[in-house]
């Protein structure tokens, strides 16, 4: 079939709904009798709660209840205690949002404070091993550092970051007898349903979670947070539907963050630029009540051929809220240290940074020793260098335009192609339309659109005839919409289910004496625009055979499972290039242009993939230059918990961004040839920018974000 839907730059199938206000997000649901809930949160980091005065709040007009005891609900932190600044301690419920807000603001929480430690750099903060990321060694990296001849040994820090999507965390919970319906902002409707059921001790089957649209999340809506549980809990207590929307300020301590990190990265190499040893020692902050580790150790171990590597990861538990994954979790942090160091090495051995990487590119996963399903890392590097005009790069401080120093930098990007078992149902209707559905989510990449395209090709239907459904926990089982795994996993399930239901109708036809396709070899039957045909036979529509069999529709639910990955390692690769200007006296760094080149297997929708990549570049610019959650460690308060003071890039900060994808498909990884993109596209960005700043100014900044005070 020549007119495949896959590979075409289809606009988002839900785009019109989103831009016309027709897409109902979680907070848009207003069931009759709704109460608005507002959380009262702690204003100290560690304490015992001795009392909560609610009389004043309860006396206010419209106030239905103020819940303070949280009895009979499982939360991740101990009851009656305060474990972090901003912890929910009470819920005010009222008829209007304004009434609930006012009530919450007059609730007085009495506490007995205890000494708190909120900074991972505090002397009283003790690093402990991560249970998830084990120490790693191959060869003798410390001996390699001693042997040299080239040795680089530096420390890197990355500030804490918050996700800051447009849509605030929101939950609307409605009980009907023992049945709970939750309209929620979540990247995993089924996971949230399970979590709420367990927290409230009700059967999983009695909780339905619905989330067809997400206004951005970046990982913040992956796991289920206390406010989601508390909304359902409050609704049960007051026996009315409850809406709970976190404020922007509450978001900063309510839905996780990218943890602050400290890294030592030491590297030994020969004069030919070949890496001989890497020592990576990494620490991240974590909550005392809950350990969160991330894969920041992976790339220094995996990406380049180094016979000797030693890697340790430690967590530093402090009195803060729990962290969580934020786009490119861990990988972007580790890549900042690794790729900055490669840039330093390039200068030391006087080898072009792209060439240096090419000399160290591995043809197999350096941790597992297995070859890659497809390895086009070097292609990304070469293509990126060519397309960006890398050859025009000059030595540090050599390019000046008026008050501006101009520099170029680059970095590698890599991320495992995560995949999970996933299910989908495909249904062909006798009227010539089709539906494909899975309990996945779409936080922005265009999952529903890609599902429609893959289903259209699997079914032999025009994409306009296919409707994709997602974001309902009653749909076929899906993994969390995270880790760049959705399209590879859900897409493969959609493809499998679509082909299965198409084949089922084809079988009906070839076995049906009334069909023009009777006794045709099913393998020779093709379907185009819903019309089945085979050489030497006539043709008919799906609907014709379905109607003859008295069916309005036929469906198939299929589960796709990835391989065990033992023979080959499935990885995504990329290279990102940046050109920056730095004001010679004022220290202002501005991006002039950037380009990412990626190998993500088959691109189902070039338009959405491009948007995805641009979004990753923008996120990386934020991480490199602007984003930092400012905390006052005297009491653990987050002081810039708003969008005027926590800086994310605005349009003026992101001028000329380009992304391209290498042609091809990785069919060894998935039947649809797809690999993930979402994490990959942010991973090299901060390092590429830091390297460009060095090339412009000769100043190496190893602490993110690179603000002007570091360059004065």
């Amino acid at each position, binding site marked *: 079939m020549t007119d495949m839907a896959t590979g075409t730059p289809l606009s988002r199938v839900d785009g019109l709904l989103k831009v016309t206000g027709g897409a109902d997000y979680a907070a848009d649901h207003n069931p009759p009798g709704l109460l608005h809930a507002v959380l009262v949160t702690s*204003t100290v980091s560690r304490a015992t709660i001795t009392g909560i005065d609610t009389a004043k709040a309860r006396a206010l007009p419209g106030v239905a209840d103020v819940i303070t005891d949280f009895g009979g609900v499982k939360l991740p932190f101990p009851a009656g205690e305060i474990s972090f600044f901003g912890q929910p301690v009470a819920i005010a419920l009222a008829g209007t949002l*304004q009434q609930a*807000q*006012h009530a919450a*603001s007059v609730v007085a929480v009495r506490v007995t404070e205890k000494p708190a430690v909120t900074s991972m750099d505090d002397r009283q903060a003790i690093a402990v091993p991560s249970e998830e990321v084990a120490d790693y060694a191959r060869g003798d990296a410390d001996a390699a550092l001693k042997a040299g001849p080239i040795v680089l040994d530096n420390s890197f820090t990355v500030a804490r970051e918050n996700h800051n999507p447009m849509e605030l965390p929101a939950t609307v919970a409605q009980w009907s007898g023992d049945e709970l319906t939750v309209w929620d902002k979540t990247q995993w409707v089924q996971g949230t349903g399970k979590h709420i059921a367990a927290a409230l001790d009700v059967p999983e089957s009695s909780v339905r979670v619905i989330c067809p649209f997400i206004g951005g999340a970046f990982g913040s809506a992956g796991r289920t947070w206390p406010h989601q549980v508390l909304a359902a809990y409050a609704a049960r207590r007051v026996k009315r539907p409850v809406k709970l929307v976190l404020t922007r300020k509450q978001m900063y301590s309510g839905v996780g963050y990218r943890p602050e990190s400290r890294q030592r990265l030491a590297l030994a190499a020969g004069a030919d630029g070949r890496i001989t040893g890497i020592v990576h020692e990494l620490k991240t902050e974590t909550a005392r009540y809950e350990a969160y580790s991330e894969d920041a150790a992976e790339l220094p171990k995996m990406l380049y051929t180094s016979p000797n590597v030693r890697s340790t990861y430690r967590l530093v538990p402090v009195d803060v809220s729990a962290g969580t994954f934020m786009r490119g979790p861990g990988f972007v942090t580790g890549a900042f240290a690794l790729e900055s160091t490669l840039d330093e090495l390039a200068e030391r051995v006087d080898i072009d940074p792209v060439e240096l990487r090419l000399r160290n590119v591995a043809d197999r996963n350096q941790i597992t020793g297995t070859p890659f399903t497809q390895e086009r890392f070097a292609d990304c590097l070469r293509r990126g260098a060519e397309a960006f005009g890398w050859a025009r790069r000059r030595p540090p401080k050599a390019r000046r335009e008026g*008050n501006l120093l101009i520099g170029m930098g680059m970095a590698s990007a890599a991320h495992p192609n995560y995949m999970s078992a996933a299910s989908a149902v495909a249904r062909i209707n006798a009227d010539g339309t089709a539906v494909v559905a899975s309990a996945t989510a779409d936080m922005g990449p265009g999952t529903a659109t890609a599902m429609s395209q893959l289903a259209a090709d699997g079914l032999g239907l025009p994409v306009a005839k296919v409707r994709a459904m997602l974001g309902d926990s009653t749909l076929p089982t899906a993994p969390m919409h995270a880790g760049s795994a959705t399209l590879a996993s859900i897409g493969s399930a959609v493809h499998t289910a679509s082909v299965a239901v198409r084949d089922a109708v084809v079988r009906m036809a070839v076995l049906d004496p009334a069909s023009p396709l009777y006794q045709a070899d099913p393998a020779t039957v093709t379907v185009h625009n819903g019309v089945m045909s085979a050489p030497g036979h006539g043709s008919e529509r799906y609907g014709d055979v379905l109607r003859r069999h008295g069916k309005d529709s036929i469906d198939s639910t299929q589960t796709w499972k990835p391989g065990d990955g033992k023979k080959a390692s499935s990885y995504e690769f990329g290279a990102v290039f940046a050109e920056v200007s730095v004001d010679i*006296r*004022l*220290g*202002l760094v*501005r991006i002039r242009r950037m380009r990412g080149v990626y190998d993500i297997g088959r691109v189902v929708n070039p338009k959405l993939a491009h948007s995805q990549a641009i979004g990753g570049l923008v996120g990386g610019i934020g991480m490199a*230059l*602007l984003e930092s959650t*400012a*905390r*006052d460690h*005297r009491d653990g*308060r987050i*002081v*810039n918990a*708003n969008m*005027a*003071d926590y*800086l994310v*890039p*605005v*349009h*003026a*900060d992101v001028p000329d961004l380009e992304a391209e994808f290498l042609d091809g498909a990785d069919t060894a990884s998935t039947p649809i040839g797809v690999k993930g993109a979402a994490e990959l596209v942010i991973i090299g960005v901060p390092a590429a920018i830091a390297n460009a700043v060095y090339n412009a100014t000769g100043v190496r900044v190893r602490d993110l974000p690179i*603000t*002007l*005070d570091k360059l*004065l």
Partner: protein
Amino acid sequence: MYPFTFIKAPTESAALAAGAQGGKYIAGGTTLVDLMRETVERPGKVVDITALPYREIESGPSALRVGALVRMADLAAHPVVRSRFPVISQALELSASAQLRNMATIGGNIMQRPRCLYFRDVTAACNRRAPGTGCAAIGGENRGHAVLGTSDQCVATHPSDLAVALVALDAVVLLRSRDGDRRIPVAEFIRRPGTTPDKEHDLRPGELIVGIEVPGGAHTARSGYLKVRDRQSYEFALASAAVALDIRDGVIRDARVAVGGVATVPWRLSDVERLLIGKAPGAELWAAASAHAADGAKPLHGNGFKVELAKRTVERQLASIGGAA
């Protein structure tokens, strides 16, 4: 938000009467509503003055007169302001966002309350919001705070870009109350924190800003505003400089220099101006004069960089307005 009553004043006399009874004036609402939501401001009565007539921009031979209800966007775009007072246009256009500039008024702009992170957090100590509670910023997160004009009570940076330009140009605030009219230089209207950081303005109870007046001259036509900040747009200044120069026959006849983002009030640099007047413009002069841009600075642990940044910002803007030669 605390409950409040809201009235829309149909006339000036109605507004002044409501103000005299303790009503809080609101126009664009871009600051007040935010602060009410954070419960930093808890007015019992809010008086909408947008029906009042102060919407004229009058450019006379010697001065520019701007009604208090003129929107930031409209003043910035006014052709006379663009040509004869470019520092005002630029300061406005580098402020806030297009949406905010379409709503916010000139009177409200110079009434902006500080962007101190602790001032805006009612659970933190703040002498400006709650006198006597202390200043959390002095020992806390103070990268954005002031190094000039501070006291041991308050170190909050004045947030207005426009006010920096107005102070540089000796603009005057026009005030009206039931007791009559007053004219106060902007530089005196906005007060340093001293021991009473809660007293931000020389504004009597019920008094209403009806406009501002900016004297024009050869220097105002040769003027401009430089704003330095981490983000390219939509951020308060880390440092800014308003510069106006009258250069004739190779000599600086008049010089106006003020800095923002580094001081508790729009900070006029009279010493720098004195060093400039009567001299020939040039890179060496800019460097020598701007070296005094942060004289008297008292940096905190998080904002020491502002001392150097203020000097460099002034130097750059002097070169930009006066010429690098």
